[in-house]
């Protein structure tokens, strides 16, 4: 679809938001009482933040919830039955105000969930998701989107991308048919573009991801991994806050005879992730798990899924309790 650019006034943004919340679920960022930036469904417009750099958790849970039921069952020996999930109940959601890095992550997730066999849970959720992105006018030292082929105003993944203008109004880039539908539903709020300047933050490029990828193919045995992961304590924080980490676990939970099978987030950083029943563990120590995380994102995925497994949001680094700074490590890796 041909993309068009319109203007939306500061005061019209609120009208658009209220129009959307009146008939669908809008998932928007707010500053919680404890200063964490979290996304909530249909918060009042006054609560919605436009000035956040990154939410504590990514927004991947709109397409890949932390717990997703796969089916329900009744276990009655020979009379056991399975009840499928009614996927038509997956709601239409508008993701509001998510930054370009988070929105680009949906493509990365698609390359994981839809290569070879298509995962219906994921694709249905993505199908029902409309994204109104917000270009970044703020950034911090953890941001590195420009190093992974994105930018503070990348359009990838958004249906409409809002960009703040100097006078407080917004440019709206209408990028897809879904975006167009939303614009059509509130056509009077969108005006002709002005020549007011956009406020876009600058994110310094820290490394070249192509170079990292090419270096990694020969770096498997490099002492770098042990040296730089000694301080890693092996929690799953980096994977759980990451917008593109998609590894999951499948578990059953039963009450009486009835139960459900669900999948939930998992992390390659956990020791038990690869542990065999026999006690053998292919990735026995933390350095191997850290290597797997980086290799997976920057070597295996580009080779296998033709997408980079990182969007440069910097959450893993800002959320890490021991300052495992991924951008810093990749910068070092491109020169080994």
């Amino acid at each position: 679809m041909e993309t068009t650019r319109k203007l939306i006034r500061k005061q019209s943004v609120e009208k658009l938001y209220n129009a959307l919340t009146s008939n669908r679920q809008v998932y928007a960022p707010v500053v919680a009482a404890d200063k964490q930036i979290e996304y909530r469904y249909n918060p009042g417009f006054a609560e919605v933040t436009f000035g956040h750099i990154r939410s504590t958790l990514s927004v991947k849970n709109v397409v890949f919830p932390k717990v997703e039921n796969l089916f329900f069952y009744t276990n009655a020996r020979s009379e056991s039955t399975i009840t499928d999930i009614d996927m038509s109940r997956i709601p239409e959601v508008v993701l509001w105000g998510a930054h370009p890095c988070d929105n680009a992550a949906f493509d990365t997730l698609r390359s994981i969930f839809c290569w070879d066999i298509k995962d219906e849970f994921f694709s249905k959720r993505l199908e029902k998701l409309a994204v109104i992105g917000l270009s970044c006018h703020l950034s911090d030292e953890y941001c590195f989107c420009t190093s992974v082929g994105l930018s503070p105003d990348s359009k990838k993944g958004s249906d409409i991308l809002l960009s703040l203008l100097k006078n407080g109004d917004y440019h709206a880039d209408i990028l897809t048919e879904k975006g167009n539908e939303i614009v059509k539903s509130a056509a009077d709020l969108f005006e002709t573009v002005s020549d007011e300047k956009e406020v876009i933050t600058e994110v310094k490029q820290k490394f070249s991801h192509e170079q990292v990828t090419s270096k990694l193919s020969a770096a498997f045995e490099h002492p770098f991994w042990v040296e730089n992961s000694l301080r890693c304590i092996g929690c799953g924080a980096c994977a759980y806050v990451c917008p593109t980490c998609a590894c999951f676990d499948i578990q059953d939970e039963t009450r009486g005879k009835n139960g459900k099978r669900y999948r939930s987030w998992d992390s390659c950083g956990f020791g038990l992730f690869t542990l065999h029943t026999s006690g053998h563990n292919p990735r026995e120590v933390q350095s191997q798990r850290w290597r797997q995380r980086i290799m997976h994102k920057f070597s295996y995925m580009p080779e296998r899924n033709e997408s980079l497994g990182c969007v440069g949001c910097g959450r893993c680094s800002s959320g890490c309790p021991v300052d495992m700074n991924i951008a810093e490590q990749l910068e070092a890796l491109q020169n080994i």
Partner: protein
Amino acid sequence: MSDFEPKVVAFVCNWCTYAGADLTGTSRIKYASNVKIIRFPCTGRIDFMLLLKAFANGADGIIVSGCHPNDCHYTSGNFHAKRRWIMFKELMDFMGIDMNRITFSWVSAAEGAKWADVVNATVTRIRELGPYVSYKEMVDKSVEEEVKNG
């Protein structure tokens, strides 16, 4: 709430309270039928998590009972249990989980009448407190959280 029948789960040790409850029966002492007894080797074996599982699965009240101090079949299981219950109670109080719903008691094999009293008192108290809605609501809400989109 007049038709509310409390569901009470009793976690008891095999050697004292279970035998005591048996004596209650053989002595033909009547007591509230709301209690479901689960027998353990020793109070030391009763994991605190079991009590929470009982609440999650619909119990309104809980009784934990074993041998009197110094009478443990395994000499010290109940002493260990006592320390654990002290800590557990303090933690539950700190988190706002209702400890009025749990009765801790020592009932020996000879105290058939005491067992009936413990059960009756607990059931009466729970009847006054009503069903343990807040814990169950949390459990149910948790299920909903999953169904919701994220």
